[in-house]
């Protein structure tokens, strides 16, 4: 198992780098090219969603866990108080569900001194079911 964590300023220009890391990990894990591309797009959508709702100066934390059978991407940002709507009804979310094999979002309650946190986790299996 390989685990890798990126911390980036939660701004759009960080996304291409994260997207590239996602694709690179999938390629090195010998995922097939479709799955590599899916994961790349999924990472992009996931981060875009979080960047969009991130509080000012928030850090986007993105943790990749690579296992032979699947890659997990868990990303989270701090959000301002009152932002509790998970982006699960959005167009981007719908795409994410299609690109990844499993997606989930959680909203973590605010801690003293800061607002809440939103975390989205996606899993991409090494070989999508319909290809077996």
């Amino acid at each position, binding site marked *: 198992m390989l685990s890798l964590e990126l911390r980036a300023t939660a701004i759009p*220009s960080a996304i*291409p780098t994260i997207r590239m890391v996602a694709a690179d990990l999938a390629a090195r894990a*010998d995922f097939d090219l479709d799955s590599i591309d899916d994961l790349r797009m999924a990472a992009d959508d996931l981060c875009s969603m979080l960047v969009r709702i991130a509080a000012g100066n928030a850090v986007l934390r993105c943790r990749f866990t690579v296992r032979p059978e699947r890659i997990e991407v868990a990303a989270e940002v701090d959000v301002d108080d009152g932002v509790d*709507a998970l982006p699960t009804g*959005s167009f*981007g979310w719908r795409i994410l569900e299609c690109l990844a094999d499993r997606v989930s979002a959680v909203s973590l309650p605010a801690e003293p001194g800061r607002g809440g946190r939103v975390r989205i986790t996606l899993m991409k299996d090494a070989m999508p079911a319909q290809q077996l």
Partner: protein
Amino acid sequence: MTPSVSSVGTEQQGEYAHLAPLQRRYGELAADDPQRQRLREQLISGYLPVAEHIARRFAGRGEPLEDLVQIATVGLINAVDRFEPDRGSDFFSFAVPTITGEVRRYFRDHGWSTRVPRRLKDLHIAIRGTLAELSQQLGRAPRPSEIADRLGLPLSEVIEGLQAGEAYRSASLDEMLGSGDGNATLGEFIGGLDTELDLIDDREALRPLLAELAPRERTIIALRFFRHLTQTQIAEQVGISQMHVSRVLRQTLAFLHERMAGPD
């Protein structure tokens, strides 16, 4: 030296002062005057260091300097041809934005296709060459290891080549759109418009947009997101390459994202 030149850098003026009279003459000659051509060449080669200087400012973005110099030179030629001395501005303040604009346009329009070194480009072409056959044999997209076996190359090189392909396909999203002051990239305009979308019924909003798509784009989106086919399967059905499917998906999603955001 004319007073009109005094607003630009004095070093540049000094260096190029001898070209100003040529510039004026060039502007005065009739379009079909045989002397014009010679003057034009003199002006272009005289101002060439300006183009080179600007080209160098754009180096380090993955484009060979000599290519950039060529593009900048095109900009310079345009500047020489279009400059109107009697407008009261000096050549530099006209030429610099013209040349810079040409290089920027190049990055925006074509930069993505040549942002990778030649070796990687060749590698990428070799990889692409194996995809159709391997996909057909396997009934799915190949893995990097399978491509490496086919090409007799180390896996690490194939992975590098695939990354080159990614730069080839998507770097344009990350390109700077404006002058660099605003730091806006195209990606910033199309990414992450989702929170607003929570407020509306996506399905309803999406329907008319899907209707706006070209038939092939609509088909590809439908196959991918509603029938859950893989890119390789779609490629087979639609009769284009997987690379192409990937590109269409990316562009169409970007379009939909953008349109879903609406004019707010």
